[in-house]
């Protein structure tokens, strides 16, 4: 199994009352409430914590990107990726992911990623995402073309990484007269691509068709199994059998020396939930054209207050009971995680360890216990269950590099 550490890098040092007064803490909540001195402190603490996670044994560091909101300070995932490429030595640097549609220049994006791969000596996992609806609005990107831009940007980057330049690209959303970047990744055929998501069935199917691992982001165990079913069917349609190396799962976990302290700190996972899902207008998360047409009718009802949030708003206690949040001592967490991976069977696991206003000392203690005690136990249990990650399984980077699909072999002959 591949076990990686994650945090949203919360910008917890702002006056929460101002957000409550304004009625939103996303998109249009003024950055006059952003304190750069505190931002500097937090960025540097989070960086130290990533280095600590590597020292304590994490396989990877998972990074992401969001905009215009205190719940995530990573306005540019490649920035932290570049820093980690230089200051770490062993961990995989896992982007989950670069929001492709936000880029007006996928060629330049491919250059940044190639630089990170080379500087890190081949440790990049180049995950891609569509980006949330709010990210489109924050970056002035057309939400109605989100999926098209995602696919075209991916195809262009894939071509850059697999075919020599110069070539010309005249696409629907991107047009480049000379594609010939002098920065290409070390990893061949190209860095592994993982695709995270939550809801979109189309994304699951597309991911399976590429044979990229799909990383379910803190979905319930039942919903996760449904995602795997969808993925597995799409995989079978293109000729391969999906396994643990195709599946990843992100779970909120907080570990401390005592259960009481762990639960107390784990309540900070609600900090982001209350603000992100409770204090933002629904149309920001799902601007018109962004989501599947099949979801339009339900969404307009929810967005106008005529229907409940389809994701529900479970309490902290409900989330602990349903294993959406795990908190406790190492032994307690290990027991729960073992059950979870028996249910969901991922070869990749992201452990979301800290959020909100958890103190620096407690964040560090969580990382130590997580990486030194919990991860080894889960890795061992995963090995017994046969949960191999893509490297252990020697999985192809993309469907086209498969050696186990009979139709493809016939074509080569």
């Amino acid at each position, binding site marked *: 199994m591949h076990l990686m550490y994650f945090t949203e890098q919360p910008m917890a040092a702002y006056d929460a009352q101002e957000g409550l007064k304004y009625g939103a803490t996303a998109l249009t909540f003024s950055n006059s409430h952003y304190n750069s001195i505190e931002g500097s402190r937090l960025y540097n603490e989070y960086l130290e914590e990533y280095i600590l996670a590597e020292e304590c044994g994490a396989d990877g560091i998972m990074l992401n990107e969001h905009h215009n909101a205190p719940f995530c300070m990573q306005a540019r995932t490649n920035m932290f990726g570049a820093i980690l490429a230089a200051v770490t030595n062993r961990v995989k640097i896992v982007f989950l992911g670069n929001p492709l549609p936000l880029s007006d220049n996928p060629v330049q994006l491919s250059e940044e990623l190639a630089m990170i791969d080379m500087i890190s000596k081949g440790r990049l996992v180049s995950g891609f995402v569509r980006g949330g609806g709010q990210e489109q609005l924050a970056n002035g990107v057309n939400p*109605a073309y989100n999926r098209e831009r995602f696919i075209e940007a991916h195809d262009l980057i894939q071509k850059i990484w697999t075919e020599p330049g110069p070539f010309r690209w005249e696409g629907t959303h991107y047009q480049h007269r000379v594609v010939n970047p002098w920065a290409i990744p070390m990893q061949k055929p190209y860095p592994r691509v993982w695709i995270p998501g939550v809801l979109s069935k189309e994304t699951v199917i597309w991911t399976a068709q590429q044979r990229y691992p799909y990383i379910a982001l803190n979905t319930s165990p039942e919903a996760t199994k449904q995602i795997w079913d969808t993925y597995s069917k799409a995989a079978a349609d293109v000729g391969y059998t999906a396994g643990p190396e195709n599946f990843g799962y992100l779970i909120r976990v907080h570990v401390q020396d005592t259960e009481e302290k762990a639960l107390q700190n784990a309540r900070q996972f609600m900090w982001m939930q209350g603000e992100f899902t409770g204090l933002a207008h*629904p149309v920001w998360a799902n*601007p018109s054209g962004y989501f599947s047409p099949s979801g339009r009718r339900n969404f307009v009802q929810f967005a106008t207050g005529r229907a409940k949030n389809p994701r529900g708003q479970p309490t902290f206690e409900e989330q602990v009971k349903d294993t959406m949040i795990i908190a406790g001592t190492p032994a307690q967490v290990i027991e729960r995680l073992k059950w979870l991976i028996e249910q969901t069977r991922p070869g990749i696991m992201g452990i979301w360890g800290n959020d909100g206003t958890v103190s620096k000392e407690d964040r560090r203690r969580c990382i130590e216990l997580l990486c030194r005690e919990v991860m080894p136990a889960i890795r061992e249990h995963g090995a017994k269950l046969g949960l191999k990650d893509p490297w252990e399984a020697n999985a192809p980077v993309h469907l086209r590099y498969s050696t186990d699909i009979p139709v493809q072999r016939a074509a080569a002959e």
Partner: protein
Amino acid sequence: MASQAPAAYAKLVLVGAMGIKPPVGDIADQAIVSYLDYPRAGFHDQAAFARVYGEADTDQLEQWDICREMVFRTAWKPYMYSQTLPHLLGGVRSKALVVWGDDDRHVPISAGEAYVKALRDARLETVAACGHYVEMEKPDELARLVTSFVNAN
């Protein structure tokens, strides 16, 4: 259309027209407001909204979302205006009537004034106690203005 075919139209009527960047204020961004708040903001009198749309059932909300998506597909950036059009308006030969609600919260009246200034032969008429949707809120007044303009020599 008139700027592309200057001789094709004898007369032109613009009502709360988008298309140019207002010199003062911005065209209201429907991307960040609810499906109900945006059309409501297009009426001066909320009773007029209720008269036209009633409770705005789910079918209506769905249609508004589809319309919104189409707006994004065709007019996302720059949002609802053309940077080229102001430079072409001087070539339009049609006489023009520009009508604006005096409480238009979707397109600032400065855009109407800019149209009048850019077109060769245009005049601005404002409709009192009226929002952006002049044709829905004050249809009789609009009809009077348009018919008298069209029928005049």
